[in-house]
């Protein structure tokens, strides 16, 4: 069966060019980049090139790039560094729709280290309440950490605007840009963030490699204590193969940004509009404009997400859901709950996240498959009668 992969916010296909770039470093060139011989130095040179390519994607200086093992490590490193940098400040701020890598860490710091945490709310469109954010800033605030783009809805926070206000107050600002990188242009010079996380496997590099950007001049204390790697900012022998792959992926991602904004956006809009037209009682979650070009979160009233996904799975379609029953826990998506999405559609919300590998034919396949799936599930739902929710 042909697979239609529209779960790119979960992970992406490793690009063929990336695989080709990595292959020699799995085998022939296994040297340690720190070694004092030409053999190891071949890897070091390739890592240097990767660092430059990643820096170019976000308009940073290569020295500001630290390679990590994943987005979660980057987030954790940034947060712990920030609170270590200002040990006297006991207040930290984030939003209530963050990825668990930030959300759960903030909850832990609250519970175990006595930090006062402000979880800034979002409105029904998923947009951040800037009023609450700015009013919560105080002399006691050590760090503000906000995601650039939401993984479930694709909704964007105005990071450049926020970073400027926060830096004026001398407070450290970190952004989790794992979902934004490679989908929209990111410029750390104009946005002025202090730290930024990104992840390789969301931009067609392999899993197990991430990046933490640390602006020059920002005090940083490492999360991994060890050797001198990454200029002492992250101990541990470099995952050279994946770093080299990430370099290539970053180069490709930069080249593909215009495609994201046009072709991918058009495909997403086509899918969205066709579903809204062909299926009654469904609605898009999140702001329609301030949103990643590849993401569609759409809720179908009176049916449940896992059932939809498993029926789509039979048609080879990969998507994900914000519903309770698909994550190991029974809690509904904290993002959709924070947006006060009504229960009737929250439980039946499906996320389609596209990449430049998707085609119009694939969108047509999804539409053709989804219409009867929703009809079938509604036919057995006690909350659906005569074409509407009861």
């Amino acid at each position, binding site marked *: 069966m042909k697979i239609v992969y529209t779960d790119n916010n979960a992970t992406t296909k490793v690009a063929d060019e990336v695989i080709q770039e990595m292959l020699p470093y799995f085998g022939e060139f296994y040297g340690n980049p720190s070694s004092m011989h030409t053999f190891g130095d071949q890897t070091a040179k390739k890592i240097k090139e990767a660092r430059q390519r990643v820096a170019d994607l976000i308009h940073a200086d290569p020295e500001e790039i630290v390679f990590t093992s994943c987005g979660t490590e980057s987030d954790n490193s940034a947060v712990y560094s920030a609170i270590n940098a200002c040990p006297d400040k006991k207040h930290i701020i984030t939003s209530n729709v963050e990825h668990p890598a930030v959300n759960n860490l903030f909850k832990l710091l609250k519970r175990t280290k006595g930090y006062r945490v402000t979880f800034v709310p979002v409105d029904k469109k998923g947009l951040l309440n800037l009023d609450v954010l700015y009013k919560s800033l105080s002399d006691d605030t050590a760090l503000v950490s906000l995601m650039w783009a939401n993984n479930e809805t694709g909704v964007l926070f105005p990071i450049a605007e926020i970073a400027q206000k926060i830096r004026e107050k001398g407070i450290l600002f970190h952004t989790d840009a794992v979902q934004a990188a490679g989908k929209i242009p990111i410029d750390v010079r104009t946005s002025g963030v202090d730290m930024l996380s990104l992840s390789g496997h969301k931009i067609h590099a392999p899993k197990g490699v991430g990046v933490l950007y640390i602006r020059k001049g920002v005090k940083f204390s490492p999360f991994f204590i060890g050797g001198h790697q990454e200029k002492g900012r992250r101990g541990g022998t470099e995952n050279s193969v994946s770093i080299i792959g990430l370099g290539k992926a970053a180069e490709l991602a930069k080249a593909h940004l215009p495609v994201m904004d046009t072709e991918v956006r058009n495909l997403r809009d086509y899918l969205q509009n066709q579903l809204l037209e062909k299926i009654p009682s469904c609605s898009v979650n999140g702001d329609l404009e301030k949103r990643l070009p590849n993401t569609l979160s759409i809720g179908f009233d009176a049916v*449940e*997400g896992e059932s939809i996904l498993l*029926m789509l799975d039979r048609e080879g379609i990969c998507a994900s859901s914000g519903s309770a*029953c698909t994550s190991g826990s*029974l*809690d509904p998506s904290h993002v959709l709950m924070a947006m006060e999405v009504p229960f009737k559609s929250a439980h039946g919300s499906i996320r389609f996240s596209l990449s430049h590998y998707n085609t119009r034919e694939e969108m047509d396949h999804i539409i053709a498959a989804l219409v009867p799936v929703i009809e079938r599930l509604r036919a057995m*739902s006690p*909350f659906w009668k005569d074409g509407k929710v009861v």
Partner: protein
Amino acid sequence: MWDYTDKVKDHFLRPRNVGELEGANAIGETGSLNCGDALKLFLKVNENERIVDATFMTFGCASAVASSSALTEIIKGMTLTEAAKLTNEDISDYLGGLPKEKMHCSVMGQAALRKAIANYRGIQILEKPGQVVCECFDVTDLEITDAVKKNGLKTTEDVTNYLKAGGGCGKCLDRIEELIESVNA
């Protein structure tokens, strides 16, 4: 992905006895749109109190649909007295087992059946003592403190695994935590 048995998959993809049942003389409803799963069970019971037909309508995940489908297959032909003895484990066993996080789907089947039988007999199901804390699974504060005391439960997760309380919309988790603290204080 959940590790569903072939029987669960089969009953999800080809559910038996779906839809409203014409001439049903016993109906049991449980769950709600808010908690993410709900089951409406229809029975046709003859003058000998034997279930001659059963159908369902379910909103929920694959295991909720499969549990409902299995329930209707199991109880067809049973007397109400026999059906009243059915447990959620019977439903789970019929399906070759359910993942532990999905056991509440079988509990929902059992609850709907009890309600349908009560509905047929014209019995009002008595209100439980105490205050309802978890509305999704209808669990009271007394039941929670009792379970915490008897089983030495420490976390809200323990309570959810034991009583399902807090495992639906999650709104009552803070209250459950308070109750755990009050017992362990």
